[in-house]
């Protein structure tokens, strides 16, 4: 989600691939576009990384439809209960669902873009408070293992998060832990 040129996370996010169909004939580098044969013709199925797709789409050389992580059935699941959807399964472990969604929205025409951005924003707003709760719950636990009384370390909760959410969870956890350690530290020993 960080657009800075020098951020490796932003570089990684732009590796996500968008399934597209070719709108012209091109010889010689099909394999580069994730196809198996090298010469490609109109209608060929190719998968384009997001650092390349926007320019090719805007030049009307590619058609694409909304990729799976943002299709209707995902939207329905999010509408039903956004907090229970495991976003990491949609974009693979280490993938950015929000980041990929925004890159896709940037190449959609206006009304579709607005609709997808609305889904991304409401989903994030609904889920991000849980990140704080879980982080304070596990960040604030005195036991070094960071597991609560039932031995749950929040690993399962974290597994379902996509990368941006995981980063937020770690930020909240680090901060909750720092405050807890401060409250527990005491000057008494110096007395």
């Amino acid at each position, binding site marked *: 989600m960080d*657009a*800075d*040129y*020098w951020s490796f996370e932003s570089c990684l996010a732009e590796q996500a691939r968008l399934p597209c169909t070719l709108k012209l004939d091109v010889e010689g580098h099909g394999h580069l576009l994730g196809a198996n044969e090298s010469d490609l013709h109109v209608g060929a199925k190719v998968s384009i990384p997001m650092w390349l797709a*926007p*320019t090719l789409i805007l030049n009307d050389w590619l058609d694409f439809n909304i990729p799976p992580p943002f299709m209707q059935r995902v939207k329905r699941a999010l509408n039903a209960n956004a907090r229970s959807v495991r976003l990491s399964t949609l974009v693979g472990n280490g993938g950015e669902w929000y980041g990929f969604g925004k890159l896709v929205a940037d190449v959609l025409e206006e009304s579709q873009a607005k609709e997808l951005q609305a889904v991304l924003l409401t989903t994030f707003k609904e889920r991000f408070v849980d990140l704080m709760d879980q982080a304070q719950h596990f960040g604030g636990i005195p036991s070094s293992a960071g597991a609560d009384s039932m031995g749950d370390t929040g690993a399962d909760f974290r597994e379902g998060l996509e990368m941006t959410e995981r980063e937020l969870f770690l930020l909240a956890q680090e901060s909750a832990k720092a405050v807890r350690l401060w409250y527990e530290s005491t000057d008494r020993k110096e007395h």
Partner: protein
Amino acid sequence: MSDWPTLPGGSWSNGHSHLPSPSPEPAAADADADADADELALDAERADAVTLLVRAWTGERCAPDVRAFEGELVGRIMGYLDAQAKLIGVLKVDGASEEDHEKIGLVQMEMDRVGWLLRSYIATRQEKLIRYAPYINATPAMQTRLSVAEQTLVESYQQIFEESLIRDVVGNLPEELQALDEVLPDGRSMVSQPDLDKAVFIRAKQDCGPVLMPDGSSLEIKKRGIHLISYRVVEQLVLRGEVELT
């Protein structure tokens, strides 16, 4: 050895040292707590050198942008620390009176604290300067916010940073790919600059009236109000001291 403007000679043991701005008597704590929540909410309005340094330190740590260097204040504090260190050195050798021993402990403690605060202020700035070195070196308005020593540091840092990237990367690429300051098609630049839209916490020290938000709406900022808001929107209020970063 840089000559810090030392303060007029002051031996604190007989209480005659003359700091340029002896701090006003600290405001007495308002005994009746509920009478004026204002007193509770805002720190006692103090203007001593250490309070000013705390403000500069907080501003630097909480703002995404590089602030103007507090050269005069830093110079004054360095002079004070220099004078005190010499004074204590003298007293420790020739055996101070019991009362002096008392005072040495307090003065030494303050020097430790102020020394750390100043080092932290300098390190915080150094980190931002280095992160945005190419942008600062290319923007005269930013350079005026730096001390002379900081300008030298930032210029030499950009040079050794880019030299390393040239040797390992761009120097080995085709000639038209060797630039380190390109602007990409989608507007992103290789020269990163502070993100002024980043959210900061502010605490209003007075009623500031309405503030124009990016979406055209306006937000009322009242005294003692605490807001998490984009730095760009409140930058002028911060620089005028009507709100403080916290």
